[in-house]
């Protein structure tokens, strides 16, 4: 059956409203979108690394999740869910659990690109049947917008401020999706919120229903850290994709495939200029930063196109 957002939205919610994420935050949209891809009737255990999502969606005594949920710490969402999955396998075999469960864990870029990378790598390498979803907002937002290895070059963050000598973060963004692909897991993909959420939905469904360890990297903008108006969230996601700053692609059984090709590749300024974190790049004398960013994006895009040939 063809994808229909209307029909998907009629399914019972798995993330309740009333959680305390900011208006215009991508994290909650990522969680809702991914959990919507679960088939009705299938049960899930949802995991979470410490971060904005965790402290906003499970504040004792209220949980926003209809499914079972576990948070343990910041850097171990991969290993914690691996333990749940291991328990499921043995309890199912022993006949103590009857239902079919899926295991989906969420972490921000702090918990995924950085402090939790080892735990994630271990879980992927060992082959647990689970999905790890990174909601990537490109900085440590929960502690107040510090730079992460996912923060793009020149972005203004509180530990990489744009000053008179150093113009924001000096380093480029780490390519985590490719690192995950290098684990030779059955499915890895990059997505974000575009149009009717079909891309997110189809990738989430594949990740959940492909046996083995799967990885989803979801660009999930943060209005506080990126400095945009809440209502511009969808527009910013579209520009990230159409400028090829955040290409949409998937790696399925080793095959690289672009899932979206911009009709017209837009210049990076269109993405950058919408966000306060890049404001200093538009001052007089900063033109080189935009050029450098464009060069980097072009180079990465070309490499990706070659992989997807």
């Amino acid at each position, binding site marked *: 059956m063809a994808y229909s957002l209307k029909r998907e939205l009629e399914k019972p919610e798995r993330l309740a409203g009333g959680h305390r994420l900011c208006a215009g935050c991508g994290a909650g949209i990522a969680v809702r979108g991914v959990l919507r891809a679960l088939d009705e009737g299938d049960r899930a255990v949802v995991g979470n690394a410490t971060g904005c999502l965790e402290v906003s969606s*499970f504040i004792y005594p209220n949980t926003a999740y209809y499914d079972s949920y*576990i948070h*343990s710490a910041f850097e171990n969402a991969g290993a914690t869910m691996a333990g749940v999955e*291991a328990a499921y396998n043995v309890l199912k075999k022993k006949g103590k659990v009857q239902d079919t469960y899926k295991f989906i864990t969420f972490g921000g870029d702090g918990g995924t690109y950085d402090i939790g990378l080892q735990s994630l790598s271990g879980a992927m390498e*060992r082959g647990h049947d689970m999905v790890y979803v990174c909601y990537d907002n490109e900085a440590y937002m929960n502690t107040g917008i510090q730079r992460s290895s996912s923060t793009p070059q020149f972005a203004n963050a509180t530990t990489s401020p744009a000053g008179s000598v150093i113009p924001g973060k000096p380093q480029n963004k780490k390519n985590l999706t490719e690192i995950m692909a290098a684990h030779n897991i059955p499915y890895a993909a990059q997505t974000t919120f575009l149009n009717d959420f079909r891309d997110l939905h189809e990738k989430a469904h594949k990740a959940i229903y492909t046996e083995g360890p799967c990885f989803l990297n979801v660009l999930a903008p943060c209005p506080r850290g990126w400095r945009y108006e809440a209502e511009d969230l969808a527009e910013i996601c579209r520009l990230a994709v159409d400028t090829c700053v955040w290409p949409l692609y998937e790696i399925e059984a080793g095959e690289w495939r672009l899932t979206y090709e911009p009709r017209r590749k837009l210049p990076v300024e269109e993405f950058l200029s919408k966000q306060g974190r890049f404001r200093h790049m538009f001052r007089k004398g900063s033109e080189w930063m935009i050029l450098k960013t464009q060069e980097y994006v072009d180079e990465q895009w070309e490499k990706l196109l070659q992989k997807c040939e």
Partner: protein
Amino acid sequence: MAIRERMSGNEAIAEAMRQVDPDVMGAFPITPSTEIPEYFSEFMANGEVSTQFVPVESEHSAMSVCIGASAAGARAVTATSSCGLAYMWELLYVAASSRLPITMVVSNRALTGPISIGNDHSDSMGARDSGWMQIYAEDNQEVYDNFLQAILITEATRLPIMVCQDGFITSHGVSNIQLIEDEKVKEFVGEYEPEQYLLNHDRPLAVGPYGTAPYYMEVKRQQAQAMKDSMPVILEVAEKFRQMTGRSYGFFEEYMMEDAEVAVVVIGSSAGTGKEAVNRLRAEGRKVGLIKLRVFRPFPRIPLAEAMCRVRAVAVMDKAESFSNSGGPLFNESRSALYDLPGRPYAINYIYGLGGRDITVDDFYEIYRDLFIIADTNDPGDVYRYIGVRDSRYEEGGFDHRSEE
């Protein structure tokens, strides 16, 4: 009929794990506990257990796997030592506050700085405030017996538990042991039937909330209550174990304490050395005794104080330094326990055996000699002492009252 065997502490633990057949084991190798997952992997490879063994990439993930598995409703176990335990530190608190029954073997080893693979208790003593129960063993028989009891204790109290043995001395030292038949062990530990768990069909569960100020402190209070309430549970499980094996366990063992005038309080394998000193001193007509502490968490404050109160002077032995400038952890808690009792003895502290340093029967002779001097002169001197250490400032000993004489 019990099975007579010869094996090391690590092998005995692995054997106990095989008999228990836990649902999930997450483990990462570290000397001197490495053999435990090695032996266990053999059992896995030969189809002798139904466990899901998760060979993680770090101890941090080993504990995380145990947390996930236990929350999901599985009986979870692990084993570690030293820096491995230190690396788990954050998750120890998560496991305890989430009230997850997890059994962890600790083959005690010094913490790095400098790196040492020798035995001492700085690893588990460092984790003493994490909300885990801690049971220590003198020899391989005790560590085997403690492990089996720990499974029942942790599941009854919903407090995770460390089963500690002295690295190399017990973990690698081979000695005679009586094993229990597989069927009896299985009957003893039974099936794990958690009340609430993630994979519960009827009732989904959320674990690991953000605890705001109106709730956080109550969680801690409940953990403290659970630790208090675990005291009778430990004794009930020990009684059930005695009925099966004839071997008796309590919070501590009193050795020649009936008429003792001075005594030593010690944890772990060094109790064996201490007992030998007691035997020899008794043969010389000296009334000396020894208390071997088995359960450190919960700390058996009142019974231990009462036992210590029967002597005139007591030496509390710490195989861990706490750099507090007031002695080791066992000393501070034991001495504090004595405070309210009338007729309390003098209590002094010896730091000993760090990083695998031997403690000998002669050392215990010296300690007992000091205790008699204290009792006879009514002068405890400096209560914070070292034994078996070189120190350029003194002829022998560290913070030693003798240099001030």
